[in-house]
């Protein structure tokens, strides 16, 4: 029995009436917009409530909405249930009991949201990546440091106003191509 996004939103709205800001059930990526302050409580509810049981956090994506001053963090969740009957149905696959995307809108200049790494351990690395590439800070994360770029990298590359580096530890990076003039703003 698979829950629709509207039903999931209904359950959330009953429990957290102030947290649910917007429900977008009909688009190609149906989801629910949640207030950043209540996100951690909502996440705990999504995982632990037996009707929802969103046990798989598929992906955390950060989207820069420049020139609007916002960054959207999108959490894609999935509920996997084991097959109900045992014995004869031993070869039945697990079923998908619901798919939803939760969106949290953060201001670009101070992008802070509570970490959910204590709820879904997979979020640990996803949040480190969002911090590294987009500059979103996850409060309460056990080890928030860069994961893909080197530790002494400057800037957050996936931001729309990112300036491409011209060199790194003596190795030239500027190539004289369009990316440099678009990104660096410095001429050589």
């Amino acid at each position, binding site marked *: 029995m698979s829950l629709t996004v509207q039903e999931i939103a209904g359950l959330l709205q009953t429990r957290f009436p102030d947290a649910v800001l917007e429900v977008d059930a009909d688009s190609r990526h149906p989801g629910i917009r949640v207030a950043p302050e209540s996100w951690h409580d909502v996440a705990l509810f999504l995982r632990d409530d037996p009707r929802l049981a969103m046990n798989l956090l598929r992906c955390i994506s950060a989207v820069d909405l420049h020139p609007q001053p916002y960054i959207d963090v999108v959490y894609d969740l999935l509920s996997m249930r084991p097959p109900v009957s045992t014995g004869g149905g031993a070869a039945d696959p697990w079923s998908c009991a619901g798919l939803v995307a939760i969106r949290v809108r953060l201001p670009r200049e101070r992008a802070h949201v509570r970490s959910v790494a204590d709820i879904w351990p997979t979020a640990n690395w996803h949040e480190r990546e969002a911090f590294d590439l987009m500059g979103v800070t996850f409060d309460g994360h056990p080890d928030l440091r860069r994961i893909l770029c*080197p530790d002494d990298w400057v800037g957050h590359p996936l931001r729309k106003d*990112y300036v491409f580096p011209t060199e790194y530890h003596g*190795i030239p*990076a500027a*190539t004289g191509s369009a990316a440099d003039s678009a990104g660096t703003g410095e001429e050589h």
Partner: protein
Amino acid sequence: MGWLRNRFEENFAITTIDWALNWARSNSVWPLTFGLACCAIEMMAAGASRFDLDRFGAGAFRATPRQADLMIVAGTVTFKMAARIRRLWEQMPEPKYVLAMGACTVGGGPYFKYGYHVVKGVDLIVPVDVYVPGCPPRPEALLEGLMRLQEKIRAETIAKRAEPA
């Protein structure tokens, strides 16, 4: 061969010794296992049964740079990896060669324009002897690169050379 080089004038004995040394060295170029990305898979395919690097004497991939002659840089070089490549190259004993395999090592490859973390060519880090273009190059192309390297090795000599200008 450092102690042999630059001591003797070129003559018949030296050219014969050269021929023998170069024959031995070009037919036993032992590569370092240095697959970084997709080109590594074509390098593995070149070492496997259909394209067989071993018939060139180059099938003994060494995991440690201390025992390797050739560093086939197979795959994209990133800034994070650059320091390690340099260190591995410095750990290889002379005579050592570098073969830049694939478009990424030759000049940045498909990541040339928007790859902020990609080094635009491994020759910015280590000196390269042979460039093999392709994305990824076919195993036959890698074999051609190896054969060019063998030609380069065969052209070496231990005789005294005139000082470069």
